[in-house]
């Protein structure tokens, strides 16, 4: 299918993009790589009058790999993260990136674009929430930050106000002794997740955080998940499945098979984290 008619403009700056967004009053859509928006345009699920291309704004494609945090411009592609070209301080980022869609999609699809698209089945919202990342949002003049865990407010809904743009993502670098596990369950490699889950255990920083995605809305993030593992070492065997089921139910997740997939994804992620820790 072909999209309905729209116009496009390449924004030269954040300020210009923000102004255009506001002027269009909801008729405009920002596009970075357009790999989620493209299918929606073709299917006429999205019918914006104006596409504002922000991928050429230089500051959005910058990555900084510092000692304590990795900063990704919102238009850094998933392929760049996969290759380690956007920094390699957090190995989990490359692992997550390598299983997002397909290489031909990752070469245009961006991390920030995925967060803003806020598809519940996407991988970046779950993974970045588990890593404790936050996003910097600009309205063209001032900036504010929002934790990734609170950025998506619903399916395809975010905390972005009219005229606001996601500028960069800050991911704290876990300590060297940290353990992590990432699991994505699909029937076919590369498709959207049936279930995904991440576990981060960083004793030095006092962190035991989990995130479960591919729910009806935003991911379920438990900042202190020690209780889910009985306070002991993290692993599938220690997982309190009854408590997790209760949490998922309260979060509005599906029941039945879907629930079982989410629980399984987390259990496997916990085992992977345990395996990582046993290696160090």
């Amino acid at each position: 299918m072909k999209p309905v008619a729209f116009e496009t403009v390449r924004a030269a700056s954040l300020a210009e993009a923000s102004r255009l967004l506001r002027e269009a009053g909801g008729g405009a859509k920002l596009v970075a790589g357009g790999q989620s928006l493209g299918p929606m345009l073709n299917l006429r699920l999205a019918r914006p009058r104006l596409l504002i291309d922000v991928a050429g704004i230089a500051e959005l494609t910058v990555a900084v790999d510092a000692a304590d945090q990795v900063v990704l411009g919102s238009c850094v592609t998933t392929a760049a993260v996969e290759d380690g070209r956007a920094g390699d301080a957090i190995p989990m980022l490359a692992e997550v990136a390598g299983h997002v869609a397909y290489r031909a999609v990752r070469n245009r699809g961006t991390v920030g674009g995925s967060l803003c698209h806020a598809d519940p089945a996407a991988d970046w919202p779950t993974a970045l929430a588990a890593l404790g990342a936050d996003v910097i949002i600009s309205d063209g003049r001032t900036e504010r930050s929002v934790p990734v865990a609170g950025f998506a407010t619903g399916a395809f809904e975010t905390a972005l106000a009219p005229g606001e743009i996601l500028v960069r993502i800050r991911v704290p670098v876990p300590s060297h002794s940290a353990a992590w596990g990432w699991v994505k369950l699909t029937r076919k490699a590369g498709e959207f997740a049936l279930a995904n889950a991440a576990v981060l255990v960083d004793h030095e920083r006092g962190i035991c955080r989990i995130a479960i995605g591919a729910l009806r809305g935003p991911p379920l993030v438990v900042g202190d998940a020690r209780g889910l593992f009985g306070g002991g070492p993290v692993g599938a065997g220690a997982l309190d499945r009854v408590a997790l089921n209760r949490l998922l139910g309260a979060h509005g997740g599906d029941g039945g098979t879907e629930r079982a997939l989410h629980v399984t994804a987390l259990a496997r992620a916990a085992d992977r984290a345990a395996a990582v820790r046993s290696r160090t």
Partner: protein
Amino acid sequence: MKTIRLTVNGRAIEETVHERMHLADVLRDKLDLTATHLRCEQGVCGACTILIDGEPARACITFPSVCDGAEVTTLEGLEHDPVTTALRQTFTREHALQCGYCTPGMLVTARDIVLRLPDADEARVRRELSGNLCRCTGYGGIVRAILSVLEARRAGRLPVMRSCRESLGPVGSRPARPSAAGAPSLSAAPARATPASSMGPLGLAGAAPTVALRQAFTVAQPPDAVWRVLSDIAAVVPCIPGASIVSVAGDRVVGRMTVTLGPMAAAFDGEAEIARDGSARRGTILGAGSDRLTRTRVAAEATYTVTAEPEGARVDVTVAAVLSGPLAQVSRGALVEDLAARLTRMFAENLARLMAGDGTGGPGLAPAAGTALSVGLLLRALATERLNRLVAWIRAARRR
């Protein structure tokens, strides 16, 4: 409607398209490049996979206006690519296609696997192929075909090299074309590169040249007439393929020079100062420029001398230049000489036409149309078997 410019299989194109028309439709319907197939139009099936800026991407969910200025390579453009050639042979041998509908996308993805993942095993090849659907073969033959090219690569029987993409942004993305005011960015975050308003010192400033060229051509016109035309900046610059003038003040000219060669394109913004010695019919040009997109800088000193020849005038040109930045890495002597020879030939032809137009009132080369025409002529001249060989060489060099 929007006018977009792309380099498609090494050819510069300009098309006015409906903005809702995706790239695959532009390639197929406007450019008759029908190797790019369409099925799902949702980015899932992979039939439309092409190369944008040298990397695989979906043509069905990429719109031309968001990759304006990009380099696009379709399967047609990979005819002489060594990896694709090897894959074509193994695809044939292994029966890796039946109806052939998925094959163009399969080949583009397979090429990427061979180049990017030399150590891939069967499981990895199958995972990487998950973005290309085939309904005929069951993938067995396709996987075997790719594995055997990978094996050839590992055994050193297929010398390929691949460079890492520098930009972290989406393939095809480009900065907005500068508006009149050049809307400044409010944020002080690190920018990639900022074009200097002045290039600083012109010429080599004592640096040792990395490129030295000597070219000569003849024009069937009296030497003094040739010298006069060469001294007229506004007339002569449009004769240089890809060159255009931004402003002229006395002997100082600010301009732009676009060089397109196969998958490479660079637009140098720069300045030059010209000094002339009329009695010796000898001119000296000191110049400097930079290509904002590739962050390539060039500084050059050139001389030109007009002498009398039996059939008219002979123009000798020497160029000494220092090239630095990404383009410098692929600009080996032989390559630059090849390009320079083409540019010189085109320049000589343009100059001859311009002067014929001046002298006889025949169809001359209007300076306003000069740039586009010159580039068009250049590109037509470049569309030769020789260029294909050259492009294959450049691609190999690029992967280093």
